[in-house]
C-alpha cells in the first residue's frame, strides 16, 4: 500500500510540484492550502507524513503542528518543514527535517524515504 503524504503550502506552484514529485516517486500525495484545510485533510486521510509551510495566510504552520500534537490520532505523524522564512529550522522543534525554499528534490526524497521506511 502506498504511503500517504499531505502537502500543506499556500503557494500553488510549490504545492503542485510537491504533489507531482511524491506521486511520481511512488507515494500517494494529497494537498491543503492552509492550516484549517490541512487539519481537516489530516483528520480525514491520516497521512504517514506531512510537509508543512510556515508562513501562510491566516494561521501559520506551527499552529497546525501544535494542533496535531494535541490529537492522539495525529500526534505521531512526522512533519517536514519546507519554508522560505529565515530561521524556519527553529519553528517546529520536533520536525524531522527543515528545508529552505528552493529545496533540493533529491534531498527531500531521501528524507521522506528515510522517514517512511
Amino acid at each position: 500500500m502506498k504511503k500517504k503524504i499531505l502537502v500543506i503550502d499556500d503557494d500553488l506552484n510549490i504545492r503542485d510540484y510537491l504533489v507531482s514529485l511524491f506521486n511520481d516517486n511512488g507515494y500517494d500525495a494529497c494537498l491543503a492550502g492552509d492550516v484549517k484545510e490541512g487539519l481537516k485533510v489530516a483528520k480525514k486521510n491520516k497521512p504517514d507524513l506531512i510537509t508543512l509551510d510556515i508562513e501562510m495566510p491566516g494561521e501559520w504552520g506551527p499552529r497546525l503542528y501544535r494542533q496535531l500534537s494535541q490529537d492522539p490520532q495525529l500526534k505521531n505523524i512526522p512533519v517536514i518543514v519546507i519554508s522560505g522564512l529565515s530561521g524556519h529550522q527553529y519553528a517546529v522543534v520536533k520536525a524531522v527535517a527543515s528545508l529552505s525554499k528552493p529545496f533540493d528534490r533529491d534531498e527531500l526524497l531521501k528524507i521522506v524515504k528515510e522517514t517512511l521506511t
Partner: protein
Amino acid sequence: MGFDMFKKILFATSATAASDHAARVAFNIAKSYQSNLNIFHVMGVPTRGYSQVVVDVKTKEEVSVDEDYIAWVTEEIKTYYEKYLDESLKYSIDVAVGLPAREILRQAKTMKPDLILLGGTTGDEDETVYKKSLAGSTLQKVAKAANCPVLVVNRPAASFWGGLSNIVFGTDFSKTSDKAFDFAIKVAKALDCELSVFHALDITPLHTGKMLSQDEIEQQIRESLRKIRARYESRLKELKGYSMDVWEGIPFIEIVKYARDKHADLLIMAHHSRKVPSGDIRLGGNVEQVIVRAGCPVISINK
C-alpha cells in the same frame, strides 16, 4: 481589535542580524495590534567623556557623530527594515549615542512605552560591541530598571511563528509574580489566549539543603498545586482555556521545558533583581537563564 496593552512599543535594535528575530516579533506585534513602534538604535559609545567621536556598534570604527551621520544611520535602519515598513505600520526611528542600557532606559523614560522589546544573541560569530553588551548587562539593566514589561527575544527559536495564542506564566508565588500574573491574565483575556500557570519546584540540594525524598517532593508538588489553585484559579476561569502544573527540578530548565511542551508563544515571568544590590546582579538568576534559553519570547516584569 480592541487591544490596547501594547499601544507604544520601544524596540531597541542593533539593526543587524543579531536583532532580526526580535525584529520579526516587534513588527508583527506592532502590525497585529496597531501599536506605535519606536525603532531605537544606539549608535555607539563615545570614545571619551562627552566626545562626539563614537565607536560605531556595527562597524566598530571611530566615527564623528553630526546631523549628517545621524541622518545616514536613520536611513540605513529604514533600508534594513524596508520589508516591514509599509503603510499599515505606525513607526518612528530614533538614534542615540551612549551606553545601550542607559540610552534605552532614557528613551523609555521619555516615551513611556507599554513594552520594551530587546533582541539578543544569535549564536553566530558576530562579535560586535552592541551584541556583546546587549546579551549581558544591557538586558539585565533594562529588565531590572524598566517601568514597563520587557520582552526579550534572545534565540532565533524565540521568534514570531504566527501569533499569540498560548501563554505560559511562571510563578514563584512572590508579590512581583502576582503583578506578572495580572499582566499575563490581561493579555490572555484581551487576545483570547490559553494561559498555563507553572511553578518549578527547586529540588536542587543547594536550594533545599539536602536531597529530598520522593515522598517529600510529591508532598511539595501537591502543596504548590494547592497554592496555585488558591491564588490564581478563580481568575483563570475567565479564560477560554487554562492549565496549572508543578514540575520539580532545576527551575529555569523546567520552565523552558514546560513552555516547549505547551508550544508556548510567550512566557511571562517576574523579575526579582530589584531586591538585589546592583553590584550583585549577574547573569544567573532564573529569569535571565530562561530568557537565554527559551524557545519563545519572554516578558519580564519587575513592577
